[in-house]
């Protein structure tokens, strides 16, 4: 979580100049932040707009309404890397081109998930989409902080297993 920072007022100041980008705000100076400034992420290689696009893609590929943006941010932050830049540049350009072909300004400006999904379906055979999707399988679901949201309890040996902690406690059958 190194680049995901919880910031206060200074970030708010930045956000004052931000342009709306989906549910997220993109500041002009290498930051992307939640509208309420609950968290922010610094990008150094790709643009904030590209990071916002990746996050929206992540939400649309694996939408869980109970999972906050910051978990998706952690899952895609690795694309802010020189090694990934070409993939991201070309991939997002193709994504936006697909959006335009379906009559939208670009992917991020599409209001309904249903319409964004149609755009994603147009590029789902491409390496870019498959890389992002496959990366999310571990990038999102292998975050230990995400597990409790789904009820999963993780490691149990240190607590003595479930033998005294409800391995057979089902009561509704």
């Amino acid at each position, binding site marked *: 979580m190194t680049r995901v920072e919880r910031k206060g007022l200074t970030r708010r100041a930045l956000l004052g100049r931000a342009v709306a980008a989906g549910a997220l705000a993109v500041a002009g100076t290498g930051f992307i932040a939640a509208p309420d400034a609950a968290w922010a992420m610094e990008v150094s290689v790709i643009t904030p707009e590209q990071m916002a696009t990746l996050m929206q893609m992540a939400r649309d590929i*694996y939408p*869980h309404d109970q999972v906050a943006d910051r978990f998706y941010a952690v899952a895609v932050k690795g694309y802010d890397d020189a090694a990934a830049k070409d993939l991201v540049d070309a991939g997002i350009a193709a994504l936006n081109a697909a959006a335009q072909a379906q009559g939208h300004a670009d992917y991020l400006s599409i209001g309904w998930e249903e319409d964004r999904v149609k755009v994603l379906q147009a590029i789902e055979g491409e390496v870019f989409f498959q890389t992002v999707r496959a990366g999310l399988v571990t990038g999102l679901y292998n975050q230990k902080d995400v597990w409790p949201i789904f009820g999963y309890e*993780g490691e*149990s040996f240190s607590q003595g297993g479930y033998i005294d902690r409800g*391995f*057979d*406690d*089902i009561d509704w059958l």
Partner: protein
Amino acid sequence: MVAKFDLNDDSVVVIIGTGAGGGVLANELAQKGVKVVALEAGGRYLPDDYINDEWDSFGQLAWLDARTTSGDWRVAKDFAGLPAWIVKAVGGTTTHWAGASIRFQEHEWKALSTYGAVEGANLLDWPIDAAEMEPWYALAETKLGVTLTEGRAGLPGNNNYKVFEAGAKKLGYKEVHTGRMAINSSDYDERPACQQTGFCFQGCKWGAKWSAAYTDIPRGEATGNLEVREHAHVARILHDDTGKVTGVEYFDKEGNLHLQKARIVSVAGNSFESPRLLLNSASSMFPNGLANSSDQVGRNYMRHTTGSIYGIFDKPVRMWRGTTMAGIVQDEARHDPSRGFVGGYELETLALGLPFMAAFLNPGGWGRGFTTALDHYENMAGMWIVGEDMPQATNRITLSETKDQWGLPVANVHFSDHPNDVAMRNHAYKQGMAIYDAVGATRSFPTPPYPSTHNLGTNRMSERPEDGVCNKWGQTHDIANLFISDGSQFTTGAAENPTLTIVALAIRQADHIAREMAAGNL
């Protein structure tokens, strides 16, 4: 005291791989006073080292060296470089395994005679039968401490089992229980009872589940007759000009090549690596690979007809709590062609943690159809199918263009379902979903087979040398002092999880080898 043998000691039995087959064979021979060098490509991990975390454990234990895939199975598309989920470590896949330990049914030793010829299938009868195997199964059950055999109590049912059992009974299934499991229901053989930790697939940190890593291997070493060399990857089996094998070449951790001489060589690297090794050992005398005059090395690859079924309920199940696979319905394991296929299948409970559930629920899937299922992870119950699949000559291991870190051609795994496999899987999907629907599932769905956990048949046993690679002792038809000791010797796969049979065959083979050595025949 742990033995140390010289590289030039040509009186030793060299065993390649230390899993269910090789690990047990090594100990059984050592107990009989036979000197053994066991070479294991992976490292050594014990219960303290195991990790209660699916991906971290996978990174620690799984075989991650390159492999390639082809054929129309979905694994070739979804997991192109990972055809199997198996282990590279001392103890082999017995660290990962879930412990389900059931005997073949009598008729399954004679698949060709029982089912008749099936078009497109390369069916064959085993050269052994149930009566022959009975005492070896009994020894294997004692070794593994299998529950519900020899008076041992069954495991208590966990939440996932209770849902499964209730549904199965409503459907009228009769043979429903918590399984014959190599997991202690009470203290046994210096190992504790299961603590219902729920990470059986990640290595049992209590040692409640049998694994060669902390039973047979150290016991063999304690005799002073067994040396296990870890991080020793065998590259080639060597032979002399009489056609007898003389030793093996292997790479150590640093990549140095060594030559270990041997009186007998046993191949037990699991069903991809064993044929790969025989093929990679081709020479001017054996241009098609060792023990391959039949052209059957690598063919007839079987992986069981599998697939999983998950049910979602309106209330919590918490399937991850407790044993991963202690629950079985055996009613469908019978041979009953009126169902539209030959052979049968078992249904067994199965639970995955959230990270693996996400990876295996519908590989490649995305969008709300996928995520709304995962949203109810806490309310989910799971089971999987283990059915007999048809051996096909074209489902096979060949050498790939791709090379591994040692510069050796890797295994290409080619697999396509036989129509019988498809018919069986569809039947099982229907029955599995009906089980959950019977107890009020609000949604139930089938999921495709994972990368293979059961890998069988690629050096099969046969009565006649032209039909297979080894005889009823696992001894290769072509080379008297070369043995096959793992799941690759399976003639057919039966409906049962394979490991009890692999272990029983290894105990029997050790007895045979020791006897033949003593008689001067080997």
